[in-house]
């Protein structure tokens, strides 16, 4: 039979690639398979589209473009700005003119993530197969969904602040130096014969009060001898929480954070005088999502890999028989 001119060099003969996806998904939904019968219900067609691999590929490609352009933009505009502009937004807006006009030019990170989550979820549900051989792929895709959802949760719910404590000092609050708030105080001044009250106001970084106290006993900086290269930092603090009867010493160092009361304290740096420690305080309700996702992914990848390797061995054995 003559080869068609537009076929590939190596025509896939009977030894076709059999990824395990072939087992999992119905052939009806494969784009190169038989066309869907025309009388298919409208909802089914929509569901087909929403759960299609085509949509996945489009989303992933758009994500690649977004991440690439965003990375280049970071050099110019800085990481934080580009994050808000490209990755933590629904749409990427481009300013037009000087009157605040702007047009959307690309889907933003949150929109792409949301579409992907829906797409993945629909694919799992719409084309589900209760076979243990399919479990690997299911777990992997569930893991991906969890990561995306976790990312969204973190973007929306997590709160980051800083605590700068000098040695010997006690602090009961952390601050967000990127956002300011107005504080007004009424001051009374009394002079001869009259009393005037006038408000004074000043700006200070947003504060998050804590029900506990943190005292910095000692801050140690270790450098490699004779250099300015930091080897390790650590803060020796005392945590005192009267509401829970907690009073203990804790060491916070780089790569070893401290978790308490739903918040995590990370050693990130030190003040210019070298004697005060800077801790990053993060409250992230969605913190567990990546770990759950990781567990699902590892298990799924393990199962999938074992299945594919055993399949490969079987086929090789069959071929050499």
């Amino acid at each position, binding site marked *: 039979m003559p080869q068609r001119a537009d076929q590939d060099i*190596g025509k896939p003969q009977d030894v076709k690639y059999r990824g395990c996806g072939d087992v999992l998904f119905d052939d009806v939904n494969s784009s190169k398979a038989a066309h869907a019968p025309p009388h298919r219900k409208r909802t089914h067609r929509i569901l087909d589209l929403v759960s299609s691999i085509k949509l996945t590929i489009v989303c*992933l490609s758009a994500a690649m473009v977004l991440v690439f352009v965003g990375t280049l933009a970071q050099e110019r505009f800085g*990481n934080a700005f580009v994050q808000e502009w490209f990755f933590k937004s629904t749409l990427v807006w481009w300013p037009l003119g000087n009157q605040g006009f702007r047009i959307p030019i690309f889907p933003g990170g949150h929109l792409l993530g949301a579409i992907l989550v829906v797409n993945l979820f629909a694919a799992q549900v719409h084309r589900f197969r209760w076979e243990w051989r399919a479990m690997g792929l299911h777990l992997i895709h569930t893991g991906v969904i969890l990561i995306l959802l976790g990312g969204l949760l*973190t973007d929306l719910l997590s709160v*980051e602040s800083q605590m700068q404590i000098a040695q010997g000092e006690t602090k009961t609050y952390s601050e967000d130096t990127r956002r300011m708030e107005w504080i007004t105080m009424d001051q009374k001044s009394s002079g001869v014969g009259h009393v005037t009250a006038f408000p004074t106001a000043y700006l200070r970084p947003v504060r998050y009060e804590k029900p506990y106290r943190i005292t910095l006993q000692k801050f140690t900086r270790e450098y490699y*001898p004779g250099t300015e*290269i930091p080897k390790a930092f650590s803060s020796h603090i005392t945590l005192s929480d009267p509401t829970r009867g907690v009073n203990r010493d804790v060491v916070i160092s780089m790569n070893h954070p401290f978790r308490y009361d739903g918040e995590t304290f990370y050693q990130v740096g030190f003040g210019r005088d070298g004697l005060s420690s800077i801790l*990053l305080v*993060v409250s992230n309700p969605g913190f567990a999502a990546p770990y759950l996702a990781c567990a699902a992914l590892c298990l799924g990848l393990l199962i999938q890999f074992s299945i594919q390797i055993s399949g490969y061995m079987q086929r090789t054995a069959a071929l050499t028989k």
Partner: protein
Amino acid sequence: MKRYVPWFILVLVAAWLMLNWRIPKRQLNDFDFRKFGEIPMLENGRLKPIDTVARNALLIIRGRQNLRLDNGKTLSATQWFTDVIFNEVEANKHPVFCIQNPEVLGLFGWTQYNRKFFSHQELEPYFWKIEEQALLAERIESARRSPYETAICNLRNALLVYQELRRNLQPGAARDLWGGGVSPIGVVYTTMGEAYRTNHAEVFNYEANTLASLMMRLDPMAASKASKETLFNHIAPFYRCLELYLFAFLLICGSWLVEGWTKYLNRSALFILLLALTLHTCGLAARMALQGRPPVTNLYSSAVFIGWGTVFMGLIAERFLRNGIGLACSSMVGFATLVIAHHLSATGDTLEMLQAVLNTNFWLTTHVVTITLGYSAMFLAGMLAMFYIVRGVFTRSLAPEAALALARMTYGILCFAALFSFIGTILGGIWADQCWGRFWGWDPKENGALLIVLWCAIILHAKRDGYIQQRGLMVMALFGNVVTSFSWFGVNMLGVGLHSYGFMEKALPWLIGFIGSQLALMVLAAIPVKRWRSSPENHR
């Protein structure tokens, strides 16, 4: 007779290596520079042998690890170093400072002629000018400097390194581990200096021995590591591997071009590659022992490890393909990555101490190694695709079975790459969550890893649903080279974020050239299949 050729070549190469590594016997009234070079010294927070200090300094200043004088004699780095600290007058006459930019020469009123190396003495009258110009140039951001500005900054930097060397080991103000005061070490150095200047080799050597035993008593581990590191420097395993990989590649090309010698040259190349891989492995193991760290700790070691990973995987691929392509990919990537590593080593100590944030062996072993293996696999897949396309378009040798075998192997390697890149990226996220308070920070290096994962996912999904066939798979695998080189190397040039270690202006044109070549190949692959020389039509 022909079948002995591989063994013959192997023996020849081994002999060449041994010859290279031979340590010439020292005459009795020669200075024992080897002994002196093995003595540990504190620099940049690390106890390293004087040999390393000397080599790195000379590399930064002169661009080479040895010094060729005008009278034709060649000085080793340690010999030069000894001159610098003990015999200032002589040392200042050595032409170590490299100046090639004509505008810099013009500063001194010199024109460009045959020389590119100048001595400290010649430059001395112009120090104030160099300082003034360099300070002006340094105010400009590194990426925006003109060649003149970069050159003047480099010259000033080289002069600073040179002067710092001398300050480090002045006999009078000998810096040592035990703080100030007159220590026995200072006394020894003074004696040594005297002996060196007055050409009393026996005294010099005797004092060198005294110093060595002093160090051995005070810090035996550092002293023994230092002598091992000196040996490592001498063997220069990665440079030798570079040469071996190139030779292996030539052998493979020969095996394809020379009629009747295919099997034997292929076997020869295999032997040389195995030898090179062994040396490569030993080199990495030595680095790990010397540093006490997992294999990848900085950009330099990542290049060396990527090469190792790809060579290893390429050899496995060859086991299945059996047509030399696996060996060719191994040798090409091994050579290229070691060349990159060689250039990266020119900026200083490659066994440097790790800053606090990287001070964790667990994550260095898990996250970093996994991701780097992912890079290796991506490059191997891309190289296989390159051979597929070049072979298919320009030669008739890509028969359908061969094409299918190549495609299957590429697909398998891509799956491996996807797995490792994915897991590595997740591990990186967990490390970041443990260390910096967030799983994902959109740092350029993180974005690069994400791009690789996304690209692998797109390939796998497109293949699974039949959007791409064999040729499409190869083209996409080839683009994987572009994505991976951006992710591994390109992001370091952006100079932003937590991962920016190593700014490489010089490498940018090479990176762009490489990416351009890959894109050109992709366009080449897009020509209709019937025009490929290997097309089934042309086979009839």
